């Protein structure tokens, strides 16, 4: 492996993701050790973006498995196309084909529906497999996933064992709504994605919002940093910051200090509950702005 973490950070930046140093190291290690990477952090800090940027960087496909309560094998790995199978059986009924050949035909590749996990190990070029919000899936599924992530093979009773043609780069994300098992945690590399520092957030803004002035970006980022320290019900994430920056830019703000009214009115972009809106009054906004501008 010739890449260094600085290179990775640089390439990630080109792919549109401003990574901190630890994350670049972690991504480097996933390639080196062949372990999945578990990303934890508050909602809206850009965990999913990491996988997307990684796929862009490696110039490969991103296969995404969104987890939810009740996710099972048939949604995650494979399923037979039952409707087509029934039709095929009915169509062959009159022809006098023998049972064995019908069975063989019906349980062939043609009738197999690939779901994300199976698809990801059958690609020619190793894809990036994003298993999003693993904490929403059931514990049974987690155990099952663990098995796939260690062997990279899937057994289909009617078809045999499918071994990986390429080992995908796996990124798991978790919002911490449920405690994950120690076994899964141990299997994975771990990175905690924190809210970005003002400097990094400003750089993210600059890369995401066209035509944004560097000074304004830094002001917005610093104000967001202060805002996150307030006692809020729903702490705004990076996506909100980007929205807000775009809104301020669109409304022609050049300097936050000079546009206090505008700042207060556009806070709807970042504060998404009634309590938060009520808590951040004009005075609070002025106080926060006073520290920034």
């Amino acid at each position, binding site marked *: 492996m010739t890449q260094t973490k600085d290179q990775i950070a640089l390439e990630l930046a080109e792919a549109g993701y401003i990574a901190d140093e630890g994350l670049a190291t972690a991504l480097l290690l996933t390639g*080196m*050790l062949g372990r999945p990477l578990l990303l934890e952090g508050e909602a809206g800090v850009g965990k999913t973006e990491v996988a997307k940027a990684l796929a862009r960087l490696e110039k490969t496909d991103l296969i995404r498995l969104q987890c939810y309560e009740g996710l099972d094998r048939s949604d995650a790995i494979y399923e037979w196309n039952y409707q087509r199978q029934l039709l095929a059986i009915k169509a062959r009924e009159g022809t006098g084909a023998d049972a064995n050949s019908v069975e063989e035909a019906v349980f062939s590749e043609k009738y197999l529906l690939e779901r994300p996990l199976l698809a990801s190990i059958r690609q020619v070029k190793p894809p990036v497999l994003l298993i999003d919000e693993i904490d929403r899936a059931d514990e049974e599924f987690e155990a099952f996933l663990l098995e796939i992530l260690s062997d990279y093979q899937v057994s289909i009773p009617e078809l045999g064992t499918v071994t990986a043609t390429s080992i995908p780069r796996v990124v798991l994300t978790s919002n911490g709504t449920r405690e994950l098992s120690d076994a899964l945690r141990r299997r994975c590399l771990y990175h905690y994605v924190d809210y970005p520092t003002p400097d990094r957030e400003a750089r993210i803004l600059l890369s995401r919002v066209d035509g944004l002035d560097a000074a304004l970006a830094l002001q917005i980022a610093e104000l967001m940093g202060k805002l996150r320290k307030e006692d809020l019900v729903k702490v705004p994430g990076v996506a909100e910051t980007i929205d807000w920056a775009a809104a301020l830019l669109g409304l022609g703000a050049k300097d936050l200090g000079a546009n206090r009214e505008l700042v207060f009115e556009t806070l709807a972009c970042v504060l998404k509950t009634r309590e938060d809106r009520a808590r951040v009054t004009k005075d609070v906004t002025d106080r926060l702005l006073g520290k920034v501008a």
Partner: protein
Amino acid sequence: MTALPLETHEDIGAVLRLRLAGFVRSLRDSGFKVGLAETGDAATLLMSPLVQRPAALRAAFRSLFCGRLSDWQRFDDLFDAYWLGRGVKSGVKVTGTSPKKGMKTIRELVDAQGARQDTIAGDVDRRPGEEDEASDDTPSRRREGASIADNLGQVDFRDIQDPDALKKAHDLAERLARSMRVRLTRRDRQKRKGPRLDLRRTIRHSIAHGGTPIDLVHKGPRERQLRLVILLDASGSMNNYTGVFTRFVHGILDNFREAEAFLFHTRLVHVSSALSERDAGRALDRMGLMAQGVGGGTKIGEALSDFNRWHAARVIHSRTCVMILSDGYDTCAPEILGAEMARLRRRCRRIVWLNPMLGWDGYEPVTSGMQAALPHVDLFAPAHNLDSLAALEPYLARL
């Protein structure tokens, strides 16, 4: 800072291997879950040219060895202490260390309840025959787990003086908690008809009819088990009950797949991880270490506020029942408690408040804290004896 001898060695030398093993050991002592595979990977990393600087090595090891946020936050200190000889001593043992003097531990409270007999036995009128009845409580007389030897079931926990009877009450409390889980799950599985066709099974069943799908099999959303979040008051006024409630909570946590426990007095402590220990004695030891200061005052309002702010989003979902075990004596302003209860109410499905004093004759919940909390409580029930705990189960099963 001495440079690690990385550049000079092709293989990592025996010294470095030993150092690495020591580091892994110190991580395990600090509660990290590190296996052989991780150590092997760490050795690979040490050999690789990527990690020539300690800072780079630290970042790489951090990703490899950490599994959760709490690990993540402690790792840098542990790393610096071990490899660079800086700062705090490495590795804080969770088990086995003795608590500081002067602090009451849960374990002491549990033991103390039994020992009280020697000191103040004369103060409380003992119910005649209680001990005898309790001790000939043979297994055949018990209904499954939840059923309690008749007398012991109705005795207020604070009146149980005999250590044996008390131990029995503790065991029963734990068994009661276990049996709750059995019944709840049994009820969950019975529902089998659903809105969607289960084609996989339908076709499997069609074999019996020569391939014509006559028996249709349905599937529907599986019913999720109730999640219990328990907030246990461990303040001085609850001393008589803390021991037995702790056992009850331990039983619940050991058996409910989804349960979380918090303990509060003047502050809130998340004790689930300590109570996940199978052995009751060791679990109580670990919990005692986490929850220093048991037996002091109570700040229910502040504890709830902490809970709402830091834990609620994670541990509460739409099928969560929050169970508060407290006598409602609060040194905070009642407005805080009321507001926090309202916030909690919006998040969860049910709030059950168990108040041991409700079982006393002539008790009225007139304290200002209790008054503020009551409008937000779905079930306000006594919890002074085993029968009252057992009475909860049907209520929980209905949720």
